[in-house]
């Protein structure tokens, strides 16, 4: 692959000196021009553009955005709601923070185009409670947009009215799950709903058809409306179109957020060429490529993968293209684009103990396997790092994890099981060694 060059569409103005979050700056950069053109078009045409674009959701599941919009029940006679998922709670992910803080009007323009395309009269931005500044920035930006008649009553002098409100969460990871988010927005505990029947497209907010899209996905909608679905589909790779923002954290020299065409950069290029490689004197040991729920990849492992054109290839971790399909083929996922890197200073039992503490804290408690299982996984790994490791702990952890995944209402079950399953499977020797040496946690950098 050629040397990676960022293609900044969503991040075009982010970190640009002098670019501010106010509407005047946005208008000076041609802001709301795409929306003006979009509102002159038929909504169905815009839905077609999004379908043609091949855009896949950037929140974690990678579900087709066009299909999501197509599934909306438009015959029910009920209002259609748009809920923008700005909960950004998957550990390792921090793109939406920057999209919100640094270019809020790009998001609002995307929201209004989405609303017009789907005949939405009321949209909500569900923003995590830990983003108080982000909420204020969005509220100010919406007010500015209202004053310019881009939001609110009689948008741009037409008969179309649509308002947007910011709704703050209060620190619960599960609110990133779309049906949990809807419950939360209704003023309840965010217990995810069972599907079927509660597909948001049919029975969402207030039992009305609802579209829930991630911040980054909605920002893409603006650019799809601008360039057209076909042009967007030519960016990236087949079935993995457009650009996406990769968030790199942990043990690299230059962590940060970088926007590339989907699948046109490998994990090795991202970590070595873009992020500057490991810290001095260190080597890479493991990487979680799509937010902390994604299965871990071990440097040195090999993957046999069927390429799109049909031939087989053998890849190392460094060779994997960062898209949805090939990461799945390698047994993990592109998820939310949060790439967490661990070098050889890290003990994997301790890293898993850190992750397990997160999931035990965040399980909503609705389903027994997840509520009890996530807690027991935390108890076991915590005991291990405090000198109580036993030889059979790896198998025990594996067995608990296996009894969670697939047995819960929402995907949290998988999200909390996958780290344990993959860590134990790929780094089993470290789990056994931990028991043999009765190692206690006095690492280079404590993780628990």
């Amino acid at each position, binding site marked *: 692959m050629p040397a990676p060059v960022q293609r900044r569409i969503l991040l075009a103005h982010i970190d640009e000196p002098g670019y501010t979050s106010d509407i005047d700056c946005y208008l000076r950069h041609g802001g709301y021009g795409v929306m003006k053109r979009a509102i002159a078009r038929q909504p169905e045409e815009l839905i077609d553009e999004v379908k043609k674009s091949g855009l896949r959701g950037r929140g974690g599941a990678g579900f087709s955005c066009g299909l999501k919009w197509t599934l909306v029940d438009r015959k029910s006679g009920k209002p259609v709601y748009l809920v923008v998922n700005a909960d950004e709670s998957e550990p390792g992910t921090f793109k939406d923070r920057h999209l919100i803080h640094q270019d809020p009007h790009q998001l609002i323009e995307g929201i209004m185009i989405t609303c017009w395309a789907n005949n939405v009269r009321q949209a909500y931005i569900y923003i995590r409670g830990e983003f108080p500044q982000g909420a204020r920035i969005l509220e100010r930006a919406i007010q500015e947009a209202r004053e310019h008649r881009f939001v609110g009553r009689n948008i741009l002098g037409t008969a179309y009215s649509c308002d947007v409100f910011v709704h703050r969460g209060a620190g619960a990871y599960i609110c990133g799950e779309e049906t949990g988010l809807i419950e939360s927005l209704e*003023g309840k505990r965010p217990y995810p709903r069972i599907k079927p029947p509660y597909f948001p497209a049919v029975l969402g907010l207030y039992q009305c058809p609802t579209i829930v899209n991630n911040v980054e996905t909605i920002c893409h909608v603006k650019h799809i409306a601008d360039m057209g679905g076909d042009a967007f589909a030519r960016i990236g790779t087949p079935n993995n179109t457009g650009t996406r923002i990769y968030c790199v954290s*942990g043990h690299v020299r230059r962590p940060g957020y970088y926007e590339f065409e989907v699948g046109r950069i490998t994990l090795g290029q991202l970590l070595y060429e873009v992020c500057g490689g490991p810290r001095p004197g260190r080597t890479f040991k493991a990487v979680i490529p799509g937010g902390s729920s994604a299965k871990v990849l071990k440097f040195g492992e090999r993957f046999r993968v069927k390429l799109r054109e049909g031939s087989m290839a053998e890849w190392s971790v460094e060779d994997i293209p960062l898209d949805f399909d090939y990461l799945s083929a390698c047994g993990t996922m592109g998820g939310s684009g949060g790439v967490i890197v661990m070098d050889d200073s890290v003990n994997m039992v301790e890293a898993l103990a850190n992750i397990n503490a997160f999931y035990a804290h965040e399980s909503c408690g609705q389903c027994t396997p997840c509520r009890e299982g996530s807690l027991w996984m935390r108890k076991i790994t915590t005991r291990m790092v405090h000198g109580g490791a036993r030889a059979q702990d790896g198998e025990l952890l594996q067995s608990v994890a296996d009894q969670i995944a697939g047995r819960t209402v929402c995907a949290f079950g998988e999200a909390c099981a996958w780290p344990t399953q993959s860590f134990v499977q790929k780094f089993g020797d470290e789990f056994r060694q931990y028991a043999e040496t009765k190692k206690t946690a006095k690492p280079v950098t404590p993780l628990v």
Partner: protein
Amino acid sequence: MNLKPDTLRKIDEAITHYPVKRSAALPLLHLVQEDQGYLSDEAIEWIAARLELQPINLYELVTFYPMFRRHPIGRRHIRICRTLSCALTGGYPVFEEFRRQFGCDLNEVSADGEVTIEFVECLASCGSGPIVMIDDDLYENVDVAKARVLADKIKAEAAKRP
């Protein structure tokens, strides 16, 4: 309930945002907590009445969502991210340093009432960890030395207070 006029105005406004009053539960809990510092029984019952709900409908939220609290906290709220990316870059020593600086335990108010230190889950700024949030302000790449500077700043501001 003795809420500030601005809080009452924001409460009235928040309720208009939703077709169903119950949806305003989280916004009202935030507004009242910001006004009062925490959510007392009286506050919860007041919100319930305002939204035509039973108090249990609010208690079940307050006991679920980590950001709501039933007790007062220190004048300054220090939140340190505990999750993996921040831990990998040194979040735990930063947490210990804040504890040492203020001599108080996790989730407790310091003896002078000045700070509460919390270890929280992912604050979504993983690329510039360790992350510390003091009140509503985010601090990035906080190592032990920077933690000391931040702690000194908090102490100096406290000393200036009449």
